[in-house]
């Protein structure tokens, strides 16, 4: 029975607090992330949604003075134990950021970065990984003739898909998206949203967005957070059509936020 639940939920977040110094940014959150689903986290600025997302692959470790209480189980294993291999965790739980952040090197080198630091040296093997990742990120057709050009010469939308390809090259099981389209134009945004639908067939996706329409369009499940607390969580349709909590209703109808 327990095993079944774990297969269904790739992440189980239990009574989870995140502090920055003495400031409580995420308060007693309980949330399950289902495998091969897209989970959206919405809420007004400063509600802790990015903090919660970054807790899932321990990117918050980089922030001095941040600390946590409670548990985050990834496939049943608490990732905040002392003996956690954070490097392996981040390989399996990748992240795409708000502002496209390719490295100042070629398209090829950007995608090959992860495999290379894992000491994959064979050219043919690297070529295959790079092509595969770019195809999955729906960028191959556009860049196959300019793999040696700088990743920074691409358009904003292409750069973001390059960053997605860079993460996919690690064969992650989960990809975390931190407002991935807020710096992009509507067409690039639509491309990324279509890409998310494609990707969810193979991986689990958690996306933070302050764009409610986006959450409604792309996600299967939606979590609404407000001042560090998880207010409501459920099927996206239910949340948007028939919210149970008054705060959720006020937020999604645009009365604040």
């Amino acid at each position: 029975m327990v095993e079944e639940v774990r297969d269904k939920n790739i992440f189980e977040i239990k009574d989870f607090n995140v502090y920055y110094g003495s400031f409580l940014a995420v308060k007693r959150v309980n949330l399950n992330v289902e495998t091969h689903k897209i989970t959206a986290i919405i809420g007004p600025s400063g509600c802790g949604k990015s903090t919660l997302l970054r807790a899932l692959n321990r990117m918050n470790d980089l922030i001095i003075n941040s600390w946590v209480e409670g548990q985050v189980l990834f496939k049943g294993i608490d990732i905040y134990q002392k003996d956690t291999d954070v490097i392996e965790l981040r390989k399996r739980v990748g992240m795409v950021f708000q502002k496209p952040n390719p490295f100042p090197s070629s398209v090829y080198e950007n995608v090959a970065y992860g495999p290379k630091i894992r000491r994959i040296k064979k050219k043919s093997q690297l070529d295959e990984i790079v092509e595969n990742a770019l195809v999955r990120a729906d960028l191959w057709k556009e860049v196959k003739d300019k793999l040696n050009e700088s990743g920074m010469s691409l358009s904003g939308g292409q750069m973001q898909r390059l960053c997605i390809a860079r993460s996919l090259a690690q064969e992650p099981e989960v990809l975390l998206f931190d407002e991935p389209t807020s710096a992009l134009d509507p067409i690039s945004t639509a491309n990324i949203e279509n890409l998310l639908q494609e990707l969810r067939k193979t991986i689990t996706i958690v996306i933070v967005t302050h764009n409610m329409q986006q959450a409604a369009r792309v996600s299967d499940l939606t979590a609404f957070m407000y001042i560090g607390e998880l207010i409501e969580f459920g099927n996206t349709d239910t949340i948007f059509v028939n919210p149970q909590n008054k705060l959720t209703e006020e937020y999604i109808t645009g009365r604040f936020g």
Partner: protein
Amino acid sequence: MRGGELIRRKRFNFKEGFFLSLVRTLGFTGAIILIGILFFIAYNGVRVLSWEFITQPPVDAMTKGGIFPVIIGTILLTFICMIVVIPIGVTTAIFLAEYSKRGFLLKTVMMSIYTLAGVPSVVFGLFGLAVFVVAFRFGMSLIAGSLTLAVMVLPYIISTSEEAIKAVPYSFREASLACGATKWQTIRKIVLPTAMPGILTGAILGTAKVSGETAPIMFTAAAFFTPGIPRSLLEPVMALPYHIYVLATAGTHIEETRPIQYGTALTLIILVLLMNLLGIILRMRKRVKRAW
């Protein structure tokens, strides 16, 4: 209509005018003094500057001939100084920028660096004499002089390297770590290559600065006269700044060698300008490539 008048009306503002002309005058004065010095040295030095002057050793008690060993001495001192100081300086900068936590150790290191940067060059000369020449038993030698110069330029290299490292966008580090790279992999593969033009620029400008120093090499490396170029690190060398000092103060032919003194000074200035030019070119290339 009235709006148009308002735009057109041009009242003379005395304060504005006064300060503008003051700033302009002072700015020009600074430039004129600098250009004047350069012109003065170039005018006096260019007469002796020739192919022979830079390829022949001095002859006749240094009253004739060229300054070849002197140029080579300065180039060697500068070059070895760079080889020693860049790894130490960059490593320290990496520690300060990436690893150190705000605390007692960091404060102590920073304090030492700032203090070191303000110490007069003759003190470094004495330090070099006590440590490298005497304690390490290098004697008056190329290596002792280079190490003394390295100690002197170290604070500058550390602070320019640290700035270059800190200028690497945080998002690069974040992206690398999110790919499952370790901190050291991130520094080695992303941070250092991105910061490298800035680090090199700082290193070149810093070393160009010390290549003209007299005091640090006076007790540690500089020879009054050597017949040729040094064959080992443990031999003393002639050097451009010290050569000027010697010819202008210590010889019996001070008046006679004036042209050679100016020629040597001009050579030193050209050498420093060339190094600065290299630094500027590096910096410009970095700016062109920088797209973030």
